[in-house]
């Protein structure tokens, strides 16, 4: 069955730098720095990345950061809670716009 996604493509990621290599270099240098230990630990950053991966629904990132979280000592419980954080934010973003709906409805309604 054909699919737009092929897991093997993640390993080919480096090919993106074959064009516009200067931009790729800037991006990946920044990327490496972002995920290095800072005020947050590498483990905390991996859990955040996992949550964001689910928010943006990137299968490559979900694959990579599931493994990264496990390899930084996390577990299914923590990782599932992180996904729920993403869900809560995404759902909350829709729900809070409901106040705008209510404002409009109240203005128009008797």
């Amino acid at each position, binding site marked *: 069955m054909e699919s737009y996604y092929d*897991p*093997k493509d*993640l*390993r*080919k*990621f*480096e090919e*993106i*730098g074959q064009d516009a*290599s200067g931009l*790729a*270099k800037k991006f*990946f*240098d920044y*990327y*490496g720095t972002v995920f290095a230990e800072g005020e947050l*630990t*590498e*483990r905390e950053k991996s859990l955040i990345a996992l949550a964001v991966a689910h928010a943006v629904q990137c299968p*490559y990132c979900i*694959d*990579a*950061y599931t*493994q*990264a979280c*496990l*390899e*930084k*000592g996390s*577990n*299914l*419980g923590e990782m599932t809670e992180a996904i729920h954080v993403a869900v809560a934010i995404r759902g909350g973003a829709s729900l809070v716009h409901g106040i705008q709906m209510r404002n409009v409805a109240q203005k128009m309604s008797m």
Partner: protein
Amino acid sequence: MHVKQSLQKISKASGRKSTPFEPFRLTLARKGLKLERGETKTLQLNVGLLCNQACRHCHLNAGPDRKEVLNSETMDEVVAYAQRSQYDTIDITGGAPELNPNLVSLIERLTPLARRIMLRSNLTVLTDGRRDHLIDVMKAHRVVIVASFPSLNESQTESQRGQRVFGTLISGLKRLNAVGYGRDDSGLEVNLVSKPTGAFLPPAQDQSEKRFRKVLYQKWGLVFNNLFNFANVPLGRFRDWLLQSGNFEQYMYRLASNFNPCTIEGVMCRTLVLVSWDGYLYDCDFNLAKGLFLGGRQTHVSEMAGPPEPGSAIATGDHCYTCTAGAGFT
């Protein structure tokens, strides 16, 4: 960081292989590395494969049905070897060494022969109600206990070690703390070993140790001296699980692609020799699991005049990638 290195670092995280891994010996040759013995300071003794558990990550297939147990005749030969060799450290492992009927006698005979005696424990045997005398002997002889503690998470621990094990690990460590192990100024050392509960590499050791120390103390009032993270070796039951679950190739690729040449100097086979329950010598516990004798030749402990010579060859296989991945395994 070079673009290619940055990209490789990110794409490696997926663990997806595109090519088979290179055999270990070819990697060494390609990088101009040689794996030879240094000064052998540690004698590791595997007292048998009998164990009260059958953990899924066990590279030796140890378990309750195993009959391989160090007997008193071989024990005498091992003690004589230790006497003429003057090792710095003697490290007793298994299976579950606590189940060996001669363990107390072995500890008492070996203690005068080395500066440090270590005992590997799965912690659960210590809670079976029959080990009080053993614990007293270990305390009296200041045996360093190296205890398996896979994870702070109960589900992860039990996926590897078996149902209802997590509670007995806590009880086992409590028992040791109660007699002074792990406490400041007691001189009684208990170290924890954590291995991943699946086909992935272990986390950074210093960060793991910080978390374990905080959580074990806050939740259960438990203390320990050091924590060590080791990767699982693709042998025995762990290898079987890797194959059955379809993780073998990906895991081997992960180990091989994380080969770190800086680890070669410190790998344990350079400074350790293992004697099995039947008296034969191996470069390490993993070579025992693989059936690779010391330097590729079957040698009995009675034939050895002393430690293996520095510069002598070490038998290797692809499982050696485990000890050379990332930060290494010492």
